[in-house]
C-alpha cells in the first residue's frame, strides 16, 4: 500500500513540464458562422435561394501558418503546419495552438486553405494529413481542402444532398489577415477567426445552392475556392 502510493507520487512529479518561461503561446480559434450566427447542424434548417437546407458536417484544412511583421517580413513559420478543422453536431475541433513562440509583435498572419502541392500528392503523410481520414481523395487528386455536406429540402418527400468537396492544387489559396497582436512571455494570446459559411457562395461568384448542390472539382469548385479566398474568414480584434 505504501509502496504503491510512493510510485504514484513519483509518477505525478515526473509529469512537470519544462516549458521555457520566456516563450509564449498563440491560439488561433476559428468559429464557423452562418449568416453571422454560430453555425448549427442537423436539426436546424436555414433558407437561401428559396429552399430550406441543413448542414451535417464542415471540415477544412488550414496550413502553412506564418507571422509577419509590419514591414511584411516573415518572422515565424510553423513547421509541418497542417491543421484539419472540423465541426459536426457532436464534434468541434476548431483551434490551432502554437507554442514555444518568441516574444514579438505580430502584425499579420498568413495561412492557406488546403494542402500545398508538394504534400498534396504525397503518400507518406501522418497526423492531420493521415491518408486514412475522410479528407484524402486519392494519389492523383490529393486531399479535399474543404468539405461541406448537408441536405436541401426542395419539396416534401424528396431528398436532395448538398455536397461540396473542394480540392485540387489550383484551389489551394493563401490568405493574409492583419492581427496586430503581441506574443507575451508565459501567456496565451488568442486570435479569433470567424468563418462565414454563406460567403462560400456569395462573392465574387454568386452560387445558387439549389442549382449547384454538388461541387467536386471543375468550374463550380474553383468558384467556391475563389470565394473562400475572398471573404470566408474575418478576424476579430485580438485580446
Amino acid at each position, binding site marked *: *500500500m505504501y*509502496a*504503491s502510493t510512493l*510510485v*504514484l507520487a*513519483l*509518477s505525478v512529479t*515526473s*509529469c512537470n*513540464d519544462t516549458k521555457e518561461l520566456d516563450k509564449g503561446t498563440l491560439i488561433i480559434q476559428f468559429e464557423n458562422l452562418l449568416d453571422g450566427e454560430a453555425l448549427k447542424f*442537423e436539426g436546424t434548417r436555414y433558407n437561401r435561394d428559396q429552399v430550406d437546407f441543413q448542414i*451535417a*458536417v464542415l471540415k477544412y484544412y488550414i496550413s502553412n501558418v506564418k507571422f509577419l511583421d509590419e514591414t511584411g517580413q516573415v518572422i515565424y513559420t510553423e513547421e509541418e503546419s497542417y491543421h484539419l478543422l472540423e465541426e*459536426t453536431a*457532436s*464534434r468541434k475541433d476548431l483551434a490551432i495552438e502554437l507554442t514555444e513562440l518568441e516574444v514579438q509583435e505580430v502584425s499579420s498572419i498568413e495561412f492557406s486553405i488546403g494542402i500545398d502541392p508538394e504534400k498534396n500528392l504525397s*503518400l*507518406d503523410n*501522418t*497526423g492531420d494529413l*493521415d*491518408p*486514412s*481520414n*475522410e479528407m*484524402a*481523395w*486519392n*494519389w*492523383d*487528386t490529393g486531399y479535399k481542402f474543404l468539405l461541406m*455536406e*448537408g*441536405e436541401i429540402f*426542395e*419539396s416534401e418527400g*424528396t*431528398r*436532395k*444532398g*448538398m*455536397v461540396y*468537396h473542394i480540392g485540387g492544387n489550383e484551389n489551394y489559396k493563401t490568405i493574409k489577415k492583419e492581427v496586430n497582436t503581441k506574443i507575451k512571455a508565459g501567456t496565451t494570446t488568442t486570435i479569433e477567426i470567424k468563418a462565414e459559411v454563406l460567403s462560400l457562395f456569395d462573392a465574387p461568384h454568386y452560387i445558387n445552392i439549389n442549382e449547384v*448542390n*454538388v461541387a*467536386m*472539382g*471543375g468550374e463550380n469548385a474553383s468558384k467556391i475556392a475563389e470565394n473562400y479566398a475572398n471573404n470566408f474568414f474575418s478576424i476579430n480584434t485580438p485580446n
Partner: protein
Amino acid sequence: MKSRILSLLSLFPLLIACNPEEYSPVVKDGYEINPPVYFGDYQERIPNDNPITKNGFALGRKLFYETALSADNSISCGTCHQQELAFTDGKAVSEGVEGKLGKVSAMSLSNLLWTENFTWTGKFNRLTDQSLDPIKNPVEMHLPLEQAVEKLEEQGYATDFQKAFGSYEITVERIGKALAQFQRALISSDSRYDQYLRGEIQASPAELNGMNLFFTHPIPGQLRGANCGDCHLGPLTSGDIDEFQGFHNNGLDTDETMDSGLMSVTGKPEDKGRFKAPTLRNIAVTAPYMHDGRFKTLKEVMDHYNSGIKNSKTLDILIIEGSNEPVGVHDEIRLHLTEKEKEDVIAFLHMLTDESFLNNPKFSNPH
C-alpha cells in the same frame, strides 16, 4: 504479497501515460507489426495497458482457435473467422453452437487498428469488449464468461497467461486483452494494390481505370466515378474512424423493410439503416456481402450500387448525389456505370486480395 506486486505493476502505465505526446511504443517483448505509413497513425488506438507483446499475441492466437471457449467445445472464434477467407466464414449469417443462426454476416478481421466502433452496428467501442461478446452470446459460442475462465484453467492455460500478463491469474479481462492483441496484429498490407502503391508493380489498364472509378465521386458530364471511395476511404478502403461517421445507409432497403442498424445503438431515428462501412481488403474472398450476406458476388454488389438503390429517409447523401448522368430529384437513384466500368471496379477490388495475409503461418491455428 502477490497482490502488492500486481498493484505496482498496474501503476506502470501511469508513468508511460504522463506525456501522451511522447507515447513510447517500446514495450518489453513487443510484437512488431510494421504497418505501411500510408495506413496512418495507430499508436493511440493501442491501449497503454494492453500493448501487443509476443506472448500476448501467442496467447491471443491460441484462444482465438480454442474450441473450449464454446459451450459444447464445438466452435472457436476461428470457426466463423477463417484465415483463408480473410477471417470470414463464407456464409450469409454465422452459425453458433447447436446450429443456431445469427442475424449478421461474420466481418472480416484485418487492419483493426484503423477502426473503432466494432460490429456492423457499432455496438462495441473497445476491441476487448467486442472479443468477449461472441463467447457469451447465445447465438454464437454461448459460454458464460466465468465458465470460460474455469475451462481455460482446466486446460492448463495458467502458464500462457503468466507469460503474457505476468501472473498466473486467468481473468475475463485478460482473455479479452489477449484476443485483442492477436487481432490488432492481423495486418493486411501486401496486396497487389499495396505493391502498386509502393511502386513495385504496374497495374493493368482495367485495374487502373477501376481504381480511379473506385475513388471518384462522379460529376455528370465532367468526371466518371463509381462513388465507392466516399465511404471506403483511402488505401485502407474502410469507413471514417471518427464517431459514427463511417456508418452509412447504402440503399439496401426501404424505410418499411430496413434493419435498424446503428439506431439500435444510438436510439436515433436518423441512424436507422446505417451500418459500418467495412474494409474492402480481401473483399474477393469474403463473399457473401453486406451485413446480412444478401449478395453472393461482387457483380451483384456492383449492380446494387449501380441500379438497385432503394430510397429512404436515411439513405446516404453521397449516394443520392452520386450519378454519372444528370438526374432530377424525382428520378430514381442510379449510378449509370457501363458494364465495362463495373468490371473494371471489380478488377480493382481483386487487387485488394493479399495472399501473404491469407496464408501467413503466424495467424493460423496453433492447436
